[in-house]
């Protein structure tokens, strides 16, 4: 069997295959539910119900989607330029640390503190990715390895900070940071709605990234470097400088996930603030085909599966791990569908 390139794939192929991938994911989920002893239709129904069936469920999904939009954008921006940032998790945590430091230590007046926290987070996350990127451009060190491994380094660093310098003296011995003062908390987007402005910021960032990529000179460079770095270099583009700028933007976006979780949701920093949002961001970005506006949709989809599966497992007794398998199979099917939308399988 071989793959043969299709020069101009038709619309049916480009849209039908991803739809088929989604259908296959649902089938896998139904199969898993049956194996776990549930009624497949009920389980699927309860996942949908739990994710979007009530106002509370929908808000929960939006809240869960917020950090995923940020990390998804971070990954999408970097991957578009073929900078393989697997370190959104580390950038998220460093952004959270910077948020807490500024929020509790700066003593800035009320209206300034939130922008300062966000700026500090962006800088921290950008610098976090700058190191691996310089190692890549200067010495050719593979950034997949460095960014991935730095996730563990940063997680341990956060653990140390929470047991040491940043430990909350009032925390009854729990490894957590002091809480942010009220003026350093992100306000809710509407009165009575349990949805903070982090979500609004995420939407603005998605639009901003789209604008950057589609309409600016830097965005053109980023896409060119990602699509063919050799041709970009030949044409005169400063490839390394473009990668560095990409790294600062990508790291900054991932760090905003940490900022938004601390300032919008939790109010303080703990070592479990992210249940792998950095890694899930990769899934979100891939499902969105690296399109920044698509990231919003796919983050909502992924968040919905998590929230829905949690709720379903409480009722149906089917483990919520089904959500992880669902996402993994959705990604695999989608990757296969994308390949097949540009290639056909030929026998012989």
């Amino acid at each position: 069997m071989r793959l043969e390139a299709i020069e101009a794939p038709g619309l049916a192929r480009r849209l039908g295959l991803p739809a088929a991938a989604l259908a296959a994911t649902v089938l896998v989920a139904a199969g898993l539910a049956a194996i776990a002893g549930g009624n497949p239709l009920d389980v699927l129904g309860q996942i949908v119900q739990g994710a979007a069936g009530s106002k509370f469920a929908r808000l929960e999904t939006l809240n869960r989607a917020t950090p995923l939009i940020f990390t998804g954008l971070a990954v999408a921006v970097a991957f578009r330029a073929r900078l393989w940032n697997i370190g959104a998790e580390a950038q998220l945590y460093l952004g959270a640390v910077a948020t807490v430091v500024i929020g509790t230590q700066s003593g800035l007046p009320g209206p300034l503190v939130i922008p300062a926290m966000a700026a500090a987070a962006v800088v921290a996350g950008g610098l976090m990715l700058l190191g691996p990127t310089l190692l890549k451009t200067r010495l050719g060190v593979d950034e997949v390895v460095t960014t991935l491994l730095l996730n563990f380094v940063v997680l341990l660093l956060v653990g140390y900070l929470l047991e040491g310098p940043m430990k909350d003296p009032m925390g009854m011995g729990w490894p957590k940071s002091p809480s942010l003062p009220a003026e350093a908390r992100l306000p809710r987007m509407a009165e009575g709605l349990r949805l903070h402005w982090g979500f609004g910021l995420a939407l603005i960032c998605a639009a901003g990234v789209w604008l950057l990529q589609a309409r600016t000179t830097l965005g053109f460079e980023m896409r060119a470097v990602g699509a063919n770095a050799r041709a970009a270099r030949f044409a005169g583009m400063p490839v390394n400088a473009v990668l560095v700028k990409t790294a600062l933007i990508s790291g900054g976006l991932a760090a905003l996930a940490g900022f938004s979780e601390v300032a919008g949701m939790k109010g303080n920093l703990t070592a479990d603030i992210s249940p792998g949002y950095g890694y899930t961001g990769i899934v979100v970005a891939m499902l969105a085909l690296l399109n920044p506006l698509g990231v919003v949709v796919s983050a909502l989809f992924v968040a919905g599966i998590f929230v829905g599966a949690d709720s379903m497992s409480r009722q149906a007794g089917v483990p919520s791990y089904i959500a992880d398998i669902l996402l993994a199979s959705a990604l695999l099917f989608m990757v296969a569908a994308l390949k097949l939308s540009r290639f056909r399988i030929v026998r012989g």
Partner: protein
Amino acid sequence: MAEILRLDGITKRFGPVLANDDISFALNEGEVLALLGENGAGKTTLMNILFGHYMADAGTVTVAGTPLPPGQPGAALEAGVGMVHQHFTLAGNLSVLDNVMLGTRPLFSLRAGRRAARARLAELSGRFGLAVDPDARVADLSVGERQRVEILKALYRDARVLILDEPTAVLTPQEVEALFATIRKAVAQGLAVVFISHKLGEVMAVADRVVILRRGAKVAEMRSAETDRHRLAEAMVGAEITPPDVPPAVPGEVLFRLDRVSTAGTPGLRAASLALRAGTITGIAGVSGNGQRALADLLSGLEVPVEGRAELMGAGLGIWSPRRAVGAGIARIPEDRHATGAIADFDLTGNAMLEDYHRPPMSRRGWLDRRAARRRAEEIIARYDVRCPGPATPIRLLSGGNMQKLILGRVLEAGPRIILAAQPTRGLDIGAVTYVHRQLLAARARGAAVLLISEDLDELRALSDVIHAIHDGELSPAFARGEITVKELGLWMAGQGGRDAA
């Protein structure tokens, strides 16, 4: 003479494209058949069907009276058909003997029968005039030697039909002669040879019979004794072709000069001296991989001299980069238009502004002006006759010729003073080749200095006012038009110039 190979009604369709349309021909023992056609005429598809890499939609392949099962790679090999590809399939870190034996015996008994294999290899070498050292590492061999190993590999497997796919592209004129001698020896001993080419002179020199393909169909079959180059060319292109007139050159000042320049990398330039004058075309002849890339990269801004001095319009290069080269008014037509000259997934608009996207009118204060970009693309499409559905078409959908026209438009539109044309016609059909030649001559008439790097000696000799040969990074002295014969040029290309020639 017995018939050894027969293709009958071979048809293959890729989507809307008819790559092979009911092609039939037969090959006899002791005969050289040339398969002549432009790029994209369907030669490669046909050979892939013969070898079972593709399945034909219709038609059969018969070897020595037995039909081959379709879609089974290996069946043709088994039946005694051997192929030497354009891109060799040798293991570089193994010896010649190992490469020849590879795959001919069970995995775990590679040592067994080495002596017999060595004797057989020596015998084949002698019989076909293919001298190689069986213990040499393939990676250390020259391209011509590697080709000999490929041919020996096929002969070792008792090939009765030998298919050579564009075998002369990588050879010096002398090596081409040696290859032809081998082919003649092979057919004298009853082998049959299919010689795939688009070079008319070679086809006339070596083939007994010529099958001409055009747009996937067989348009003519002639005995080479009963035809001439002109008629072959007409059949291949489907129209009368007229070579461009080359008016006498009006040389001006030196715009670019290399004085004993060396570059890093292998093969880099070694103490190369060169002067590009306004109003002239300077040709570089050489077997591929002899430093042409280093020379092109130097002019493109990708390489810097590590020794010697390079001068641009009389001044040093300064901090040298592709963007500086573009800014200095050097038009660069890269050797590999797919990988270097264009971004395949970008549309024509994006590709048309690759070099000046960062300057007005393409961009202002960091924002792209999409309308200006589109207008530019439309202008190039119209003025350089780029056949395409529109400026929003991904460039990968264009044929090589149309892609090259877009690149020409991109770099020539600004009226550059220096033009680097690296293999500008490689892989193009004759119509596009003529177009490229006319554009280069027009630029020369306008007073531009053109550096033409090519492996096609006919092209070089037709266009170049001054010609250098390049071998292992060293440039020969400059020869004016008509000052050097092909034979002498071949010796310089092999690194033996100036010793027993010139």
